[in-house]
């Protein structure tokens, strides 16, 4: 099974995945194939340096996502992965993708509903 791996430690919330996807799927206002969620900012009491602030984004694959099947069949990347400015998204077989999850930084492995 294929999925999308996100090293969300580095997601910047730039919206490129959302617009890239929306344009390919031709979705109207209010509908998305991938949608960013934002967490924070908040300050952790008593923490300093890199651990002081929480402010993270993770995109969610919606029911509209088909992992860009026509594109990947043609050898291309899914739109979200290709355009991710933070370069923190990967597409592939989930077992292989999972091997990148190293515990050093934060990751999320997403698999959309593919059967219709």
């Amino acid at each position, binding site marked *: 099974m294929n999925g999308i791996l996100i*090293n969300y430690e*580095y997601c*910047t*919330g*730039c*919206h*490129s995945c*959302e*617009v*890239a996807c*929306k*344009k*390919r799927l031709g979705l109207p*206002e*209010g509908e998305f194939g991938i949608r960013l969620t934002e967490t*924070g*900012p*908040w*300050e952790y009491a008593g923490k300093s*340096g*890199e651990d*002081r*602030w*929480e*402010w993270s984004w993770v995109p969610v694959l919606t029911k509209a996502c088909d992992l860009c099947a026509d594109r990947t069949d*043609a*050898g*291309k*990347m899914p*739109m979200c992965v*290709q*355009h*991710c*400015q*933070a*370069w*923190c998204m990967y597409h592939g077989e989930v077992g292989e993708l999972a091997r990148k999850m190293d515990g050093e930084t934060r990751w999320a492995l997403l698999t959309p509903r593919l059967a219709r």
Partner: protein
Amino acid sequence: MADYQEFLDTIDRAAYHEGEWQWEEDGYTVTRTYNYSAPGCHDSCGILAYTKDNKLVKVEGDPLDPCTNGKLCMRCLNLPEATNYPDRLKYPMKRKREDRGNVDAFERISWDEALDIIEDWIKTNIDEAGLGRESIMVNHGTGRNINYQVPFLGGACLRTSNVGAIGFSGYSCYLPRVCGTAAPMGDFPIVDASMGHPDRYNNPEWVHPDVLVVWGCEPLRSNADGYIGHWLVQCVQMGTKIISIDPILTWWGARATHWLDLRPGTDLCIALAWLYVITQEDLIDHEFVDCWCAYYDELKTYLATPSENNDGLGYTPEWASRVTGVDEETIVASARMYANAPRGAIQWGLPFDTQVDSMHACLAVSDLMAVCGNIDRPGTNLLVRNAFEINPGYATASMYADPEAAAKKCTYKTLQQLQGKEPKAEPFIGMADCDAMCYAMETQQPYPMKMLWVQGSNTYTCNGLDTARIYRNIMNFEFIVVADPYMTPTAAAFADILLPLKMSIERDSMRVWWQPLRAMKAVTTFGECKSDEEIIVWLGNRLNPELFSKRWPDIDHFIQDYLDTGFNLINEDGSGLKTAGRNKAGADVVADAHTEFYRKHGGTGTFMDLVQQGGYEYDEFNDEYEKYAKGMLRSDGTPGFATPSGRIELISPTFQAWGIDPWPKHYESVAQSMWTTDEEYRKEYPFTIINGNRSYEFFHSENRQQKTMREFHPVPYVQVSKQTAEEYGLAEGEWIWIENHVGRCKQCVKINPALQPHYIVAEHGWWFPEGDGNAPSLFGSFDCNINNLTYSFETGEGGIGAPYKSIVGRIYKVKDGDTLPSVQILEKGGFREIPPCGVS
């Protein structure tokens, strides 16, 4: 990413048609090219443009492009919506002067008729009236690939060198950083994220910075100054640690080892205190300082010497802490972290240009890079030049203007003379001085201002200080030509002649702004729109036929000349005047005024060659490190920097020649000085307002007509702290007035839990293309305009740096029935009596 080779290995190159620049795919024609996001930005990313029946249908990033590797921002991804916007200007129009502000009064005309009207007007009202061409002012914006085109049009076509931006006091964008580094180090330093190399992150010499200082900017949103902010995220993925110096928490601050949330306008104090720590603790790069820097001992002594400027404390962390509000320990620890990094790099932003001690802040940061040896080495601040020395810019205005008009250009010296002050120096800046032009507009001294040409600028809606004042001043021009892709508030308010411009995707054009040289190939046409280059050729051949018929009789000659001479003044034997690019101001007499591109290709390289080879070419100059040691920076070929002494001058004699104190000193705007010392004033204006906060959706005042952008960002947001929200009873989504002695505007509340209580953060450039274009509304361009609260005629030494980002004000809730700023300004006499000329 982190593993660039893995990325390259996994791309199916055939699927992306490697080696082809244009092909057919699923019924579309696909073109591999570069594009400025619609209509403009500072960058040109590699795209694949899908067209059908002369219409742009979709856009993708090009994963085979080494410059941006297929990544695109949301604006470029939405390019078809911007390009195919139904209300774009399609043909030239005219309108009677008395109908200004009425968008329904425009009448379609031909390009020929527009040219006749413009030529006749200039002939009758300028030339035959005995005035010089200096009575014509040219106003430009930024980005959108106009940085040389509009000054060039001013000089070569209209023959004036009064080219600038109305109400843009203090040259407050980029010029201070350019001049503030050109003086001490002779070139411009940018963070080395491998962008100088065609093999990018794989380059064997390149190493990521160990410490990155992100200072006064959010490069991810602004992508300013030809620099892609997300390049730096790749560095962080590879291990770069972060120091953030910014009153606003950014992506960088939330991930930083140290976040220094200083008071706006006090950046120089942090820089001086860092220098104090680094020199006192001897954390400098001794070899680099010994071999390549001048005046180190003088700098060290100066920093430790108590003076009035440092409250008798020396430029110590204790002093800086008092002024900036950042605690002393953090200042010391962050200084050590930068200095001790094997490779440190500083990404600096607009606030360096928007404070009154701007030039000194730039000098101090140059000194930091220098004493730590973080110059032109891998993973530090790289010294860059425009690829192939293709350098057209502001200098072209003065080069090609009528010599008498050029001699009368409005400069800072002009302003000082008009104000009865003794000028300290001769002018050294290409752009005309905006306060001097404002003075001329208001007093008709030293000569009348009669005609205005605005191309790709939204004037009072965007960057112009004191909207009410500059709206009045612009309206006083007798004849105004506006050229733009859209019906902007500026076009609606002022245009007597309105010319439709092509978008980037419809233009044959090229760019450098560092590396690489990139071709932008037109893939569609729209109505009767002309490109900026086509307008130059159209106008120049009529108004300046002697020059144009020889050099630029048609668009092909013009485009080729960009590659061959970069529009340098050139004689038949090849000698001429060469524009100096961004490493210094002005132009030099040279034996060969051709570009490096011309020399490299023996004069045979063409625009279409560049397009067909994939659209880009890297210049070897920017691919090299330690150019100072290799004799690559000085025109005489000797090792060293392009400064008078050949060394980086830590105390700047060039500043002195420019009439600026060579020793860095901190001083603040009148408003900030009062805000910090006068309790009554602070009661009246409890907030420092940080202006011009950037967002992913918009480039300055652009993109507001795109529904997709507005879905993400429907209205202007003003950020307030949690404490302020509680104190004023504000909820997210509520509208508040932001007000001071100059005027007021309204924006929509967003609560920022990381903001200090006495700051608010406002957006700029808002108008509402869906609204009424007629006056007084003018697309709502006054109502949310933060520049209703800013003012002209306050700048730093040398006339450089205006306090855009550290004004003061109060807030209160918007109530039903409140008078809109548009009505107040256009129908009720404004917020205040506009002060006499020269007064803020």
